């Protein structure tokens, strides 16, 4: 029995190609039903995410199965499928790398493990898996857990938005009841605000020199727009300030902030200054309860985290290699026993 992996991912195909081959959740059972008719194919799992569409199959005749798969996909999409493919053992290694986040666009991201688990659960539920793929996927989940716990591959945040969210969590813990003010509706501040909203922030106030732009962003992220002249009135109740205006001089100075901080009953203030030139005077960081980060410090944190993750790849590969050897050994023993 050979384990075959065939698919397309972000390394070889742009999104406009990937989306043509994507299999929506509600279609997976049907597609599984169809591919199981392919000659030589005994078991199958389909992993379909925004970055990849991959078919894992246990087959006694991998060449025929691969041809059948290509034919099926061409019929389904009307396109020639630019598939890569792997046989045992590289297909096993590939799955272990995918589940561990080593093949992801953001190295070490953990969302993919949940997606692989979901894909396996759907296939198992549809009766499309048996001894070989059951064992393979259980091993993949175990390997991904080992990689996550024994290395630093998931350490830290690797984008400005996720760094901001991580720091906000380390200051406030739960973000549900925190108030965010976006001062200057730029692209980066919008991304940071969206990241915070995705982590539970419910109150976002947007202020921009052009009120229409503030209203547009507020509408998109479920916030409230205010005129730029009024931002200081709302400021005392804000927990997180994201600032990215084009002002030539600092808008928030130590002299202005100090009396406001005294009215906050000890509540901390997290300031994310994305503007160049900076909107917030650096001396503000010396005030009790104020935590100021500018764009350089956020990018520096993201870069360091990514460097740590990259330095861990070799360690992760060693864990994966060890497990690939174990799994292939099990597969061989199983085949000998059957013979």
């Amino acid at each position, binding site marked *: 029995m050979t384990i075959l992996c065939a698919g397309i991912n972000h390394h070889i195909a742009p999104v406009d190609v990937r989306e043509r081959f994507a299999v929506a959740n509600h279609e997976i059972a049907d597609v599984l039903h169809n591919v199981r008719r392919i000659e030589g194919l005994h078991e199958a799992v389909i992993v379909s995410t925004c970055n990849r569409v991959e078919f894992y199959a246990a087959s006694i005749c991998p060449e025929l199965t691969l041809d059948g798969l290509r034919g099926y996909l061409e019929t389904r999409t009307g396109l020639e499928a630019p598939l890569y493919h792997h046989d045992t053992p590289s297909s096993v290694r590939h799955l272990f790398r995918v589940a561990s986040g080593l093949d992801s666009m953001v190295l070490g991201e953990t969302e993919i493990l949940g997606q692989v688990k979901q894909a396996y659960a759907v296939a198992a539920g549809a009766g499309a898996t048996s001894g070989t793929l059951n064992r393979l996927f259980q091993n993949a989940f175990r390997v991904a857990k080992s990689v996550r*716990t024994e290395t630093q591959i998931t350490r830290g945040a690797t984008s400005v938005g996720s760094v901001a969210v991580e720091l906000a969590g*380390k200051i406030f813990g739960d973000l549900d009841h925190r108030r965010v003010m976006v001062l200057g509706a730029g692209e980066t501040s919008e991304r940071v605000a969206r990241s915070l909203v995705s982590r539970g922030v419910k109150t976002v106030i947007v202020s921009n020199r052009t009120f229409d732009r503030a209203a547009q962003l507020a509408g998109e992220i479920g916030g409230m727009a205010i005129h730029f002249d009024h931002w200081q009135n709302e400021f005392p109740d804000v927990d997180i300030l994201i600032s990215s205006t084009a002002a030539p001089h600092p808008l928030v100075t130590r002299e202005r902030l100090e009396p406001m901080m005294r009215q906050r009953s000890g509540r901390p203030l997290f300031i994310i200054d994305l503007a160049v030139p900076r909107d917030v005077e650096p001396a503000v960081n010396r005030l*009790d309860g104020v935590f100021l980060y500018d764009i350089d410090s956020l990018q520096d*944190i993201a870069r360091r985290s990514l460097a740590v993750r990259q330095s861990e790849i070799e360690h992760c590969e060693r864990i994966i290699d060890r497990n690939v050897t174990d799994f292939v050994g099990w597969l061989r023993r199983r085949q000998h026993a059957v013979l």
Partner: protein
Amino acid sequence: MERYWLVAASFCFLLSFGHTLFALGSGTFRPARFNLAAMAGGFVFESIFLYQRGQIVQTCPITNLFEVLVFLSWSIVLIYLLVGPAYRLSLMGAFTSPLVLALLMLALLAPVDIVTPRGAHNPWIEFHAALSIIAYGAFGLACIAGIMYLVQERQLKSGRVSELLLNLPPITDLGAINGRLLFTGFLLLTVAFVAGLAAGIAVAGIKAGVSFAIWTLYGTLLAMDRMRLLPTRRIAGGSIAIFIIALVTLPSVSHLAAP
């Protein structure tokens, strides 16, 4: 013979501290049960020691400085075991273990295990003394929370994301925990003082003076925290400073069960 239990407890606390340092250094620290298990193991050994000592001295084993140090260490671990898991403060064990280890080492190595003549058995006095030390246990843990707060604040202010920052609890939570532990300790100490007054203990001047001064300092700090008169970092600093004062003056109030 019962001292061997303390050696075993020290080993557990050392294991907890060493494991956390290694895990933080290698970047593989995960909030796990290991710290809790090691601290719980140390607590069990200390409890066995205190039980056996209690059997020997036929009273609550806080009759000399040696026993007071062990009882204080036991109280800090007790409060940690109650508070730590509730607030998911896995890393607090790593900060607590060196303090309790230092107290045990001091007890074991310093010549302070001196037999002290006892007065008549009075349960009120024992209650007063035991509760006072448990209150100090809460203050000890408030001191630990204060240290964690200041470490986390320094990390956040410096703009560096270290392994320590990633694993320490949110700074807002640390400030809140510090305040709650100060309140718990102050409440216990107040009840202990009331019990002492109810027992009609005639206390030596210096002991009464030091005890009252510590109680006043904690009361003032707690009031300032509740009324938001001081920033949280100052409250954290105050928790550390007053606990150090309490430890330094401990010998003068060590014979708590004695008049």
